């Protein structure tokens, strides 16, 4: 909370370059690929015969491939990369063992690839958000440990003793994932529990992954990028603390749907926790508004824009989550498109947008300020922002309409399924815009990395081939 003298960040940026290139570059590739599978999955609603002869591209494999690549391919590496950057920058210390972190990142991407191949080959586990086969899960776990270990070493070596809120969120996220992921892997894949317990473990895991982990990692970035770019202090330390503890306290209970066939206390407790998740969401909303109030910094499709939009989506998604926890609503919305729309809003609208903002803020520090074209960054924003809304909101509204028809016994099931088509058409449009936006993101990030290495190579070549007038003079 006290003013800290500015330091030269050059050695810190140098230490972050290789691991962050590996994490962000891979994340951008997986994100673009995930959009491809998302497009195939959503187009199946309109042209079921498309790729009908190819088992790997059937809906039952393309859709899990989409969610696998989105969460494990993009969200986790992007969140890790931003988290490591924050630990180094806020601790005023160089990243520990950048080479080993880069190896861990490569291992992570290998795990994602193994998972993708497994899913396309039909080896998916069938648990939503945990579709990756066992081998992939083990590789991902080891890779995460390898990366997270050096994150903690960086943290302990910090020269700035007092902590900034973003650091709490990063550290909690680094501890949270090994806990939930090892539990899910052990109880669902290595020593599978029986019957309904499997479903409750899977729901607990996906609730923790999407409602807690993504929020922890995303908020670490939100609470850093907003004050950094607006030049105002974060409003405030205590609001961040309040959001931090309420998020972890309530978020971990939220996974079980209201009409799960489990003993009544589980869905009931989960419903109460979903409503209580309003508190951290409103706290974040208040904090963002107070921090950005009266700030003249232009938004202009830059990192600030992405981050603000992300925070708004977090609040909206949390309101939807709380509404759908009320029993009168959940009897309509449970097991319809509503939940998927809400999750999409949280993953794309909040997390991915916040990560885009953070990555667009960080990458110029790594490659030099002129290598990411601001216009393409802006175009990217104007593709993914409307794309997210067009993807998520029709699913939310269409889910309500679908649920109202489902509870009406006089409407045949086929008619219910057909009535969702209009919402799905709009969300296909949104998915298409997102896919284009994600391609632009890939192009921007890979372009920046390639142009950086080209210039490094060029400089090395010039230096090696130059005459040496200095020595001649001496």
């Amino acid at each position, binding site marked *: 909370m006290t003013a800290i003298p500015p330091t030269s960040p050059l050695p810190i940026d140098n230490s972050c370059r290789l691991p962050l290139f590996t994490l962000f570059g891979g994340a951008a590739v997986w994100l673009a690929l995930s959009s491809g599978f998302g497009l195939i999955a959503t187009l199946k609603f309109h042209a079921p015969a498309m790729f009908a002869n190819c088992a790997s591209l059937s809906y039952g494999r393309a859709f899990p491939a989409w969610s696998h690549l989105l969460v494990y391919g993009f969200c986790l590496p992007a969140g890790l990369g931003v988290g490591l950057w924050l630990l180094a920058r806020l601790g005023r210390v160089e990243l520990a063992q950048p080479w080993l972190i880069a190896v861990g990142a490569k291992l992570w991407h290998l795990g994602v690839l193994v998972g993708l191949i497994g899913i396309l080959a039909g080896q998916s586990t069938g648990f939503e958000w945990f579709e990756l086969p066992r081998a992939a899960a083990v590789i991902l776990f080891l890779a995460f440990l390898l990366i997270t270990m050096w994150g903690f070493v960086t943290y302990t070596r910090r020269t700035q003793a007092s902590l900034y809120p973003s650091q709490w969120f990063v550290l909690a996220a680094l501890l949270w994932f090994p806990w939930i992921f090892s539990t899910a892997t052990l109880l669902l894949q290595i020593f599978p529990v029986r019957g309904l317990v499997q479903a409750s473990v899977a729901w607990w895991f996906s609730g923790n992954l999407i409602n807690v982990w993504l929020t922890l990692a995303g908020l670490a970035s939100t609470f850093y990028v907003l004050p950094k770019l607006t030049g105002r202090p974060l409003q405030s330390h205590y609001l961040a603390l309040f959001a931090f503890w309420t998020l972890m306290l309530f978020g971990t209970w939220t996974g079980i749907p209201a009409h799960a066939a489990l003993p009544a206390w589980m869905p009931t407790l989960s419903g109460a926790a979903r409503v209580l998740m309003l508190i951290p969401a409103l706290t974040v909303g208040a904090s963002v508004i107070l921090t950005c109030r009266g700030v003249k910094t232009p938004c202009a499709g*830059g990192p600030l824009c992405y981050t603000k939009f992300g925070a708004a989506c977090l609040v909206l998604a949390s309101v939807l989550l709380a509404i759908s926890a009320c029993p009168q609503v959940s009897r309509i919305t449970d097991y319809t498109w509503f939940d998927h729309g809400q999750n999409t809003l949280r993953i794309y609208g909040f997390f991915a947008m916040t990560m885009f903002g953070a990555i667009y803020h960080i990458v110029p520090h790594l490659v030099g300020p002129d290598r990411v074209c601001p216009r393409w960054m802006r175009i990217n924003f104007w593709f993914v922002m409307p794309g997210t809304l067009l993807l998520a909101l029709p699913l939310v509204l269409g889910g309500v309409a679908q649920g109202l028809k489902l509870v009406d016994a006089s409407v045949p099931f086929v008619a219910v399924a057909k009535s969702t088509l209009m919402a799905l058409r709009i969300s296909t449009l949104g998915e298409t815009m997102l896919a284009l936006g994600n391609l632009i993101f890939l192009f921007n990030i890979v372009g920046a990395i390639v142009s950086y290495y080209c210039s490094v190579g060029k400089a090395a070549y010039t230096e090696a081939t130059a005459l040496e007038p200095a020595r001649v003079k001496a």
Partner: protein
Amino acid sequence: MNAEAKQPSPVRPESEPTSAATTVPMWLIAGLLGLLFLGAWYFDARGGWFEAKVYAPYLSLADVQRFQPRTGGPEDVILRGKVLFEQNCALCHNPDGLGKPAQAPPLAGSEWVLAAGVNRLIRIPQLGLSGPIEVKGQVWNLPMAAMGVAYSDDDLAAVLSYIRNAWGNKASIVAGEQVKKVRAELGGRNQPYSPDELKKEAE
């Protein structure tokens, strides 16, 4: 101009963000307490207090037990017997106890069912029956398997109590102890009775 161009060059010293010390507003604390209260109330009303047997739509253990078959008075025994009868016996003897023409004899009004003592009656489902049997002046000849051998004492007693008190029948309730006693008398016997042999047993 755009935001990117305004950012400081990475080689220049850069200050990292700080946080202000404004406290958490009262409305958030009040909101948290209010939602906690609502959540606790909701859990108390619907959660069944961590009871593993309570599933929706039931709200508590007492609520679940209200819908379980009771094992108290004779009505409960007969009710239990009705369930078992309709699962296992009604296929041949019909749910209305009138039997199947030329195959299974009726139980409604049958002198075998309505006998004062149940010593003979218990042996029929326990071991089965073969050979011609006269019921209500008509001779029936289809072997019956030992349908009741797998029942517990109380369940067999419940089925017999039901057939002795359904469809206009009126006779005493059979107790589990009576079944137990007969089963002990039968020892290791596993051959079905014939009606003539059955008549040699005490009523």
